[in-house]
């Protein structure tokens, strides 16, 4: 919940930053790139043992569009996926935007800039691209494991090594693809890598981004060390219902209960059919 609020705030902030000095060209580029990312996630790459990976694209977007526009574009993709493919769903929308959007775009961009933001096809460009992609994936996986650990869905001792280790391997693909695409662009359309059309990351943005990433991580770290639930979460969720009150926690169902549930299920079906036929007759067509 606190992540939802945070993601919403960061999207609003990014939208304000981008809209200032926005050109129509940028609008079309962002729109088309969000479609590009959405679709390129359909291109699977077989890794091993039947699993497959695909480009996530956060680092790539951060490098090409700059962090703010990149975050917006990534957020669009994630929202669209939640809406239409129901992939990951609205349940974790805020967390997803934070992990795959904010963290991966920002770290991808930061790593690329720290490595000198090379533009020419040489040895440094693929290297910078690779590390940007790899670190962005690993960091968002770690953030995800931290969140899962804090919300007590998956214990931290299991989640952190599992997510971190797995994504350290998966991230190699992301890094390689990011590097490959950057190299290809540097050869074919070098003008796209010169980010004179993308809004630069001003000092205020660096600070804002750092605060954005540091605050939740700080809260998470504090909460993790003190074995308390996420304070913001607790604040927003209010008093938690205790398990003993809920019937679901009674894991043994009696026979009559099962019958009752079956009857209720049938009732739902009947309601569906009734509503359907009722409004079909009354419909204008």
């Amino acid at each position, binding site marked *: 919940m606190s992540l939802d609020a945070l993601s919403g705030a960061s999207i609003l902030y990014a939208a304000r930053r981008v809209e200032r000095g926005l050109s129509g060209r940028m609008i079309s580029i962002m729109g088309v790139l969000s479609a590009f990312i959405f679709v390129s996630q359909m291109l699977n*790459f077989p890794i091993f043992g039947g699993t497959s990976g695909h480009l996530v694209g956060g680092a790539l977007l951060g490098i090409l569009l700059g962090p703010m526009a990149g975050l917006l574009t990534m957020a669009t993709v994630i929202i669209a996926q939640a809406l239409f493919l129901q992939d990951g769903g609205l*349940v974790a929308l805020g967390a997803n935007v934070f992990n795959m959007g904010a963290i991966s775009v920002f770290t991808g961009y930061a790593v690329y800039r720290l490595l000198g933001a090379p533009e020419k096809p040489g040895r440094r460009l693929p290297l910078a691209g690779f590390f940007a992609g790899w670190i962005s994936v690993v960091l968002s996986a770690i953030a995800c494991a931290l969140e899962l650990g804090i919300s007590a869905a*998956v*214990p931290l001792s299991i989640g952190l090594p599992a997510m971190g280790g797995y994504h350290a391997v998966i991230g190699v693909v992301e890094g390689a693809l990011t590097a490959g695409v950057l190299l290809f662009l540097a050869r074919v359309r070098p003008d796209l890598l010169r980010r004179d059309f993308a809004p630069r990351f001003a000092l205020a943005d660096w600070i804002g981004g750092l605060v954005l990433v540091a605050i939740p991580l700080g809260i998470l770290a504090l909460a993790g060390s003190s074995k308390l639930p996420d304070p913001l979460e607790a604040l927003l969720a209010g008093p938690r219902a205790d398990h003993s009150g809920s019937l679901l926690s009674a894991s043994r169902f009696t026979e009559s209960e099962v019958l009752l549930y079956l009857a209720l299920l049938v009732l*739902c079906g009947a*309601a569906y059919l009734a509503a359907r036929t009722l409004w079909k007759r009354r419909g204008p067509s």
Partner: protein
Amino acid sequence: MRHSFIDRYANLDSPLHVLDARTKLVGFTALIVTILSIRNGSPGQFFAFFFLVAILAGISQIPMHYVVGRAIALLPFVLLAGLAAPWKGSEGWSWFLALLLRAVLCLLILVLLTNTTRFVELQRGLRKLGCPRILVANLSFLYRYLFVFADEVMRMRQARDSRRVGRLGALAELRTLGSMLGTLMVRSFERADCMHQAMLSRGFQGEFPAAAPRKFSWRDLAFISVVALFIAATVHL
């Protein structure tokens, strides 16, 4: 190629379809938030929600196999989360069951929302509700060009698959995919430039023009009040 995996039934005509997009956005979001906030709901609450969703689905005239099919497509993700259940002790399975029910309910509501509202209207509703202009513009571009790009990707994939025999090494595979993505990216930049020219020549002023929105009618009022009453009733159930 035809793609209709997103909002196949959004063009039907039912009492749900004619509601204002804002009404549906607010109403369905309120339902989802309520569902997410009942962490340890009683079976009665869950059934009440399923009952409501069933009625809404019936009213919307969306075929049942479609709705149920989408719900089943989600299950693997939830089952993945369920892997954590054994670590949660004796409460684990009830926790997982509640998670599963909540996920399915939210999914059904989303299917209803996207399949009863045309995308243009959804977009206008989001804008009217204060969603940032740039985000809405992005969403609308994504929706419009998704299919173009999906076609392109499928063609490229077909071309790749028809030019290779068996499996290549990991590095060659990566290199191929890298240039495919790169090509796609160059094409998307070029398409963006074309679109920009087209937008300029049609007098783009930073806002997408939209036809007159539907008026807030008694139907919207009825829908909102039913949803509000329902939520109030179930929370106290």
